[in-house]
């Protein structure tokens, strides 16, 4: 999978396939973000976010980080959703987090997290799987080895290789520094 900016550039040319790519790479992170603020409506809001993304694709500036652009749109949609609710059912703290400066900051923090997550999707499956379990699901390497039913040494090797590769992808040098076994 290419970088976020490359997906954004294709979207700006109104390639429908780019919308699908953006959805599969960033959709899960966006859904996590929206769940926090709009709860059960997150899936609907996610769909509306992507309709907006399509509608405004021509305005995407390739200089801007793509995830930031996506989360800005999702943030606006989440605020709209809470505004049109007559009986808010989100925790007051979550609602407070969503508006004003705090809201922009948390959208940016999620956008950054999603960027790393997107880079992860460019790793070989085995390495990605180990890093997901250990960094996103909170497993130790030993627990990951049990979950995957592979020796601990294999998990360590995949984690180490995957981490280096992720660093290279994030630095924009995906082919550097890691040799496949």
């Amino acid at each position: 999978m290419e970088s976020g900016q490359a997906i954004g550039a294709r979207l700006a040319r109104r390639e429908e396939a780019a919308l699908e790519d953006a959805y599969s790479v960033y959709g899960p992170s966006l859904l996590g973000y929206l769940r926090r603020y709009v709860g059960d409506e997150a899936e609907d809001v996610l769909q509306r976010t992507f309709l907006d993304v399509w509608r405004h694709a021509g305005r995407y500036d390739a200089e801007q980080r793509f995830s930031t652009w996506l989360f800005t749109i999702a943030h606006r949609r989440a605020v709209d959703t809470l505004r049109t609710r007559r009986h808010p059912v989100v925790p007051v703290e979550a609602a407070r987090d969503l508006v004003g400066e705090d809201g922009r900051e948390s959208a940016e923090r999620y956008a950054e997290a999603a960027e790393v997550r997107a880079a992860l999707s460019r790793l070989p499956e085995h390495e990605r799987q180990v890093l997901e379990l250990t960094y996103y699901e909170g497993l130790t390497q030993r627990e990951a080895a049990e979950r995957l039913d592979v020796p601990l040494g294999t998990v360590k090797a995949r984690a180490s290789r995957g981490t280096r590769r992720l660093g290279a992808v994030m630095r924009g040098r995906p082919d550097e520094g890691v040799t496949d076994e």
Partner: protein
Amino acid sequence: MSEHPDLHALLRAELANDEVLAAGDHLDGCAACRADLAELATAHALLARSGRTLGAVAPAAALAPLPPVRRRRGPALLVAAAAAVLLGAAGTTYAVLAGDDDAPRAPVAATDLDPVEGSARGRVEMAGAEAGTRMTITTEDLPPAGSGRFYEAWLLDPATNKMLPLGTLGPRGTASFEIDDALLAGYSAIDVSLEDDDGDPEHSVTSVLRATYDPGVVGS
């Protein structure tokens, strides 16, 4: 020199205290491990922060499929839509706002506006006008649009998603429009959307209320 420590486990805080301290001693004397650690540390920091923020994330395959996107109209049609808005404002085609002194006529059709989002409700009545059809929209419990926003009424053809802007709802959530019968017969639903006052003449995608009507009764 001691055996090279497991640097990834060190960063992830998965080593026992004595192993951590031994790794520290080893690093003091091993330039290769120090270089290795520097490389791993940056990616570890990115992953740890991302994981802390997002937590467990659903796989992409678990997402509901995206709805088909509405293709943007070609430039010529966009210009036509913009021109229609301008003409509407000048009152020469169809948008005649509430408050004129046409004598009320019995409605030829009426339909309920049901909530798409939120819990507002409403009603649309259509009655024959001097020329065309007068459509009157009334709403209940529509929350204030808020600063820099407004509600807009549209004709919609759900089969093709073709839309025609009618005009804005007034501050009481009501509006009345006189519409050419041939135009009205080309659609079969009425949509009320919440719009940002951002100069974008397209539908915002936030539909609040929707009603359907039978195009066959129009003008009858």
